[in-house]
């Protein structure tokens, strides 16, 4: 698939999540569906976080990325911001790598 076709597709599906409710909705969604949709962000982020940190080579390994994630998670909890989290994680990772030789 062409790069620009993917970008256009992303743009269309994104707008398709933002506009219809504003234009059409006069009542609430069924509560079970609403709950399901509400849980998706956490599920998405966890699915993206776990494999590279906990199983970088495919199987469960507690290596440097997993250890570096601990201070990063603490910073994420305190600041609720992405950028400080990345700085804390990368900083810890570089220090750990230097210590490990």
């Amino acid at each position, binding site marked *: 698939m062409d790069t620009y076709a993917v970008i256009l597709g992303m743009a269309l599906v994104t707008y398709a999540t933002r506009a219809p409710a*504003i234009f059409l909705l006069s009542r609430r969604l069924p509560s079970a569906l609403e709950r399901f949709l509400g849980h998706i962000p*956490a*599920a*998405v982020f*966890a*699915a993206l976080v776990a494999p590279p940190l906990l199983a970088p080579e495919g199987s469960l390994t507690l290596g440097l990325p997993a250890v570096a994630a601990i201070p990063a998670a603490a910073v994420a909890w305190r600041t609720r911001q992405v950028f400080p989290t990345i700085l804390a994680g990368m900083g810890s990772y570089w220090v750990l790598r230097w210590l490990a030789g």
Partner: protein
Amino acid sequence: MAREAMNPASPSNTPPPAPRFRHGFVAVAPLVPGVAAFALVYGVVARQVGLSLLATTMMSALVFAGAAQFTAVSMWGLASGALIVVTTLMINLRHLLMGASMAPHLRGQSATWKALLAFGLVDESYALAISRYLRGEGSREFFLGVNVALYVAWVLSGLTGGVLGGLVMQPARWGIDLVFPLAFLGLLVPLLTRPVTGAVAAASGLVAVVAAPWLPGKGNLVLAILLGSGVGTALEAWWTPTR
């Protein structure tokens, strides 16, 4: 004006359109550095996975969805274009809920205003605009002001990151690929305020790791997201017996 009559706040207390737009700008200012920094990282990593500066910037300008763009870039070259689009849809489904809660406040606005405000409906703008509306001080101009400030910061910082990303050499040496899970960790952790969300995250993360060898091309993500959200929905139905 009909719009003023709908507003619970007294019309005489509501400033005219231009100041309301400016108030939106001012209200979002504290959030702009965080958004700009995220966009900067997006721009850098988008170039690292091989997107051109034009494609990097065009994605920001047309999609305008941080988490989804970041996810797309992290999957770039590893998953099919179709799966990237489907994943974008899943990540942005939450906007459906935000749109639904915003809808009553935008009733009576023209289609042009609705279309414009819907494009800018992101987590940050939703949070600011809905809190104003709930206090009876909301307006389309305020919402638009927030959207424009966020959009300009997002696109320009992404462009800047894209220029810088073209200069960084040997990404693997610096462990740049670790930026992706760390960014998602930064998005995930603030969401973990309820036990049920912790269960969703644990289930999804576990499934993503376990299913990875059997579902290549990031198919494990789809399974993990559906099962994780399903676990959360089931637990909530079980814990809160609402009939």
